[in-house]
């Protein structure tokens, strides 16, 4: 079993601070300055996020089997509960972005409690600021651009449809290697 953070307190705080930055400024690429070795199929950025966000009270859905070394590692370090039902998950992990499902299958929360929604952590195959996706909305002064490699184009249509139910909706964190970006439900995405 691989070890977790070098320092549980300082590393998780550094990751959380970076996530806050990425969430508040959609399109910004954040890179927490920490060292973490994760099992094969788990990107260091995604591993760091999961160790930071999960504990024994959270419920995780994943595209990996619960018996894989990746999920065993996450479970060992966080004590998170696992669910096979996407709509019951507080967090969801996609290690393969090609197999992304309709985000509508996850829990968007309710108008009274939009905070109960699922947060997606998606591992992409590449991440840069090419002008492929145009982002607008809160936290972006005029517009921002981002490009994620390996996300099926229909995913963005499904996301737009689902987020019409605002304030219910799904927040997403997209990762490549150890870099993270976020697309909160308020961010409008246009494919250029």
């Amino acid at each position, binding site marked *: 079993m691989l070890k977790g953070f070098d320092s549980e307190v300082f590393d998780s705080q550094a990751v959380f601070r970076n996530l806050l930055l990425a969430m508040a400024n959609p399109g910004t690429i954040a890179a927490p300055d920490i060292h973490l070795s994760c099992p094969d199929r788990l990107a260091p950025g995604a591993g760091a996020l999961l160790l930071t966000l999960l*504990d*024994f*009270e959270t419920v995780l859905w994943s595209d990996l089997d619960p018996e894989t070394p990746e999920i065993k590692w996450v479970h*060992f370090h966080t*004590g998170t*509960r696992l669910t096979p039902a996407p709509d019951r998950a507080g967090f969801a992990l996609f290690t393969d972005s090609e197999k992304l499902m309709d985000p509508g299958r996850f829990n968007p929360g309710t108008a009274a*409690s939009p905070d109960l929604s699922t947060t997606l952590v998606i591992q992409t195959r590449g991440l840069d600021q090419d002008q492929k996706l145009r982002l607008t909305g809160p936290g972006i002064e005029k517009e921002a651009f981002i490009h994620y490699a390996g996300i099926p184009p229909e995913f963005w249509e499904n996301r737009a449809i689902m987020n019409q139910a605002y304030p219910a909706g799904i927040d997403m964190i997209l990762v490549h290697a150890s870099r993270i970006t976020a697309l909160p439900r308020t961010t409008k995405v246009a494919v250029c």
Partner: protein
Amino acid sequence: MYVAVKGGEKAVKNSQRLVAKKRRGDLCVQKISVDQITNQLGLGVDRVMAEGSLYDVTAAAMAIQQAQGDMTEAIFLVRAFRTTLKRFGNSIPVQTTKMTAIRRVSGIFKDIPGGQVLGPTYDYTHRLIASDQDHAPDPPCEQDTDTASAPPDQTAAGDGISPLPGELPRVIDLLQAQGLLQQDETTSFGDTAEDLTRQPLAFPVSRNLRLQTLARGDEGFILGTAYSLQRGFGLDRHPFLGELKVGYVAVRYTPPELGFDIHVGRMKLTECVMVNRQNDAARKAAGFETGYGLVFGQNERKAMSMSLLDRSLAGEKNTGKNGYPARDPEFILSHCDNVESSGFVQHLKLPHYVDFQSELVFIRNRPKDHTPDKGNP
């Protein structure tokens, strides 16, 4: 919940300096220590732990000192401290039947198995302020061999009273055995239980959440509303004290990687069961129904009031009493938290200059010949 207040930086700093000075008091008088508070103001510590929802004697004592003895402020400090603590799991439900009791009484049967045990209580004191108490010399300090290795509040013997036998039969089981008790709603434990500190209170409220809310509710509010029930605002039958017990229970936890349970600590609890004759109109076979109270530390007034409210809020419909405050879960449970109540009432100290301007504008713009509305339709 209103937490912090902004203001002019210099004025705020000076105010903080002043409060620190007031808290310390006369420098010629010796400062009190946290140990003195845990030892000699134990019931105050118990109250702060109960309403602060955190069983931590030291934190509660420090909070009482920092708040200058203002209990609601101390409770606020403990609640704030509680949010910073890492949660690592749920304990196994404590067994109050296996409680090491230091006090146990029943108001319904004289000869209860195990006996009536008064233990430490103010019930039989004369309520006279004894001025000589301050000057009476303490007996010589002897280290009790039983407690030498444990902090004073962690062992029953630390109270200087020998504990009762490990297991006392529950008074309520006597009624249960005769089939006189109504079965209560089943409650759930551990991972499946709801947790008031993790989710907002939404109505209708389960018994689990109702008891959690009452257990951390303000003692004064819980007591006053329970009293209103007894005075006829919601209860038309005399309630009886089935059993009141104060003692220590073991807290056990099963770490998932170990697979067996370990003892992680002890805590002092007050448990109360109230018994009421059921409403005839409901035509239930059993005969009696119960209300339950469980509070951190020793606080009998709170545990008894909690049991009365638990029953009255169980919400038996069509009794004609539902209009009373103490029968209304939304009224009681939404207003019994003193951190929330205190925050909202005290936020009125904050600047409301703009809100008030709008009131002024409204009044000044009224037509000149405006006469007060007599309230006629």
